C-alpha cells in the first residue's frame, strides 16, 4: 500500500505529504499479563503485511490467542504498542466501538446461534448502520444485497435463512468469514481457524482465505496444522512461552519451524 518516493523524470518533484506505514499491522515490544508479574506475552514485536498470510504457531499457552486479542484491541498491553494501518489501536477498556477495519474470528467463531446465517453476516455491517435502524432491524437495501452476495459466493447461499445452530462446522466457518468480510476489513485475525475441520473442508476454506488475501487484505491466523503452514503461509511467527522465537519472511522452512516449536 505504502509508497511513494519522489517521482522520477522531468517536472516538479512530488513529495509525499503523509508517509503511510507499509505494515498493515505492527506490534512493537508488547507485554501483556493477566496476573501481575506473570506475563503471557513478553516483548513481542511483529509486522503483518497487506496481501500476505501470517501464521502464528506455538504450543497451547504460548500466547497466540492473547496476541490476536491484543491486535484487535480486546486487550491492552501493559507495555508496548499496536498499530493498524499506521494508527494506534484503541483498546476496548472504554467499552466504546472497536475499529471495524480489523476483523476478528475467535476460535469458536463467536456466531450468534439464534440468528440466521444472513443475520450473522449482517452484524458485520453494524458499524455502518445507525442506532435506530439497527434496533428496528431495518437494514439498508445495499447492505442486505451485499450480505446475500457474500453468502452465495462462499457457497452457502441456500443456507442463508437457517439458524446458525442448525449449520455444520464448515458452514459455520463460512458464516464467520462472511461476517468478517462484511466489515470490509483491511486486516483479518483468525484464531485456530481451521483446526476443527476435515482436510477437504479446510482446503476449501484456505482457498477462500487466499482469495481474500489477493484483494490486499492482511490475514493473521493461528494454527497447529503444519500442512496448512507449508502450503499457505507467507510468513511464520513462532511463539514460545510468550516470546517470539522465530519470524520468517517468505517461504517458511519446516525444519526451522519444528525446531523452534520444540526447543
Amino acid at each position: 500500500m505504502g509508497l511513494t518516493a519522489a517521482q522520477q523524470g522531468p517536472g516538479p518533484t512530488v513529495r509525499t505529504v503523509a508517509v503511510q506505514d507499509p505494515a498493515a499491522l505492527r506490534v512493537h515490544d508488547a507485554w501483556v499479563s493477566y496476573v501481575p508479574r506473570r506475563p503471557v506475552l513478553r516483548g513481542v514485536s511483529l509486522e503483518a503485511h497487506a496481501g500476505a498470510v501470517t501464521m502464528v504457531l506455538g504450543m497451547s499457552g504460548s500466547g497466540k490467542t492473547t496476541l490476536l486479542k491484543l491486535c484487535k484491541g480486546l486487550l491492552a498491553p501493559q507495555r508496548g504498542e499496536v498499530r493498524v494501518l499506521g494508527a494506534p489501536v484503541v483498546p476496548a477498556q472504554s467499552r466504546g466501538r472497536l475499529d471495524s477495519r480489523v476483523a476478528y474470528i475467535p476460535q469458536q467463531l463467536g456466531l450468534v446461534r439464534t440468528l440466521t446465517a444472513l443475520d450473522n453476516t449482517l452484524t458485520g455491517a453494524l458499524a455502518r448502520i445507525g442506532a435506530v435502524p439497527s434496533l428496528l432491524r431495518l437494514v439498508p437495501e445495499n447492505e442486505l444485497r451485499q450480505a446475500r452476495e457474500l453468502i452465495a459466493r462462499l457457497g452457502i447461499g441456500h443456507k442463508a435463512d437457517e439458524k446458525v445452530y442448525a449449520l455444520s462446522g464448515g458452514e459455520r466457518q463460512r458464516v464467520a468469514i462472511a461476517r468478517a468480510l462484511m466489515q470490509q476489513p483491511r486486516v483479518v485475525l483468525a484464531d485456530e481457524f481451521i483446526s476443527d475441520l476435515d482436510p477437504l473442508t479446510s482446503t476449501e476454506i484456505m482457498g477462500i482465505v487466499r482469495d481474500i488475501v489477493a484483494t490486499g487484505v492482511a490475514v493473521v491466523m493461528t494454527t497447529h496444522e503444519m500442512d496448512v503452514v507449508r502450503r499457505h503461509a507467507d510468513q511464520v511467527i513462532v511463539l514460545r512461552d510468550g516470546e517470539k522465537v522465530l519470524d520468517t519472511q517468505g517461504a517458511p522452512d519446516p525444519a526451522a519451524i519444528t525446531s523452534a516449536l520444540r526447543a
Partner: protein
Amino acid sequence: MRRHRGAILVATLLVLLALALADVGLLDPLRIVRGVGNLGEFASALFPPDPSSLPTLAEAMLETIEIAFVGTAIGFALALPLSLAASPVLFGPAVTAPVKILLAAVRTVPALFWAIVFVVAVGLGPGAGALGVALYSLGYLGKLLYETFDGVDPEVVEAVRSVGASRSQLARYVLIPEAANGILAQLLFMFEYNVRASSIMGFVGAGGIGFYILGYLGLLRYDLLLTALLLTLLVVVAIDRASAVIRRMFLYPVAPMPPGE
C-alpha cells in the same frame, strides 16, 4: 479429624434449631395438640366446597389473571432496559452498581405493599393491583434478566464487539437473541408467580379473587373459601401446562452444535 469437625457442626446446628423452635413456641406440646385439633375443625368446615359462588369467582379469577398479565407486561417493559443497564457486558460498575441497587430495593418490597401504595395513588381496584405486580416484577425480572445476560458466551460478545458494534447493537444482536431462551422461561415463570401474587391483591382492595378469599375467611365460610382456592389451583396448574407447551414451541436446542463436518 475431619469427621469430628462434621459431627460438631451438625450438633451445633441441632442445638440452634432446638433453641429457635422454643423461641417461636413450637416446643410446647400442649399447644401442638390444640393446634392439631383446630386444624381438624377447620378441615371439616372446608368440606364440601360450595359451588354456588362459582360465577362470581370465575369473574374475579379472570380479573386476577388480567392483573397478572398487565403487571407482567409492564414489569418486563421496564425490566428489559434496566437489566441491560445492569449488565457488566455493556457498562462499567459506575452504571451497573446503582442500577442493581435500585432493582434490589424495588424487589425487597413485597407486591402486596406496592399494591397498597398504588391503592393510595390511583384508588381501589385492579389498576392498583396491576401496578403493584408490575413494580415487583420489575425488581425480580430485572435481576433474572441481567443474570441471564451475564451467562451469554463472552466469545460471541467479543466477536460482535469486534465488528465495531455499539452497546445498543450488542444488546439487540447478541444479548437478547442469545438469552432468548432464558428470557422466555423467566417471563413464563414470572406470569405464573404473578397469578398467585394477584390472587391476594384483593386483600388490600386492589382487585381480583383475593377480595372474596378474605371475605369468606372473615365470614367463616370455609366451604366457599375452598371453592375459591380450588379455582385458583386449577388456573395455576393450567398456566403451568400452557407454559410447558409454549416453551416446547419456541425453545431452540441449548446444546445444538452438531459435530463438525
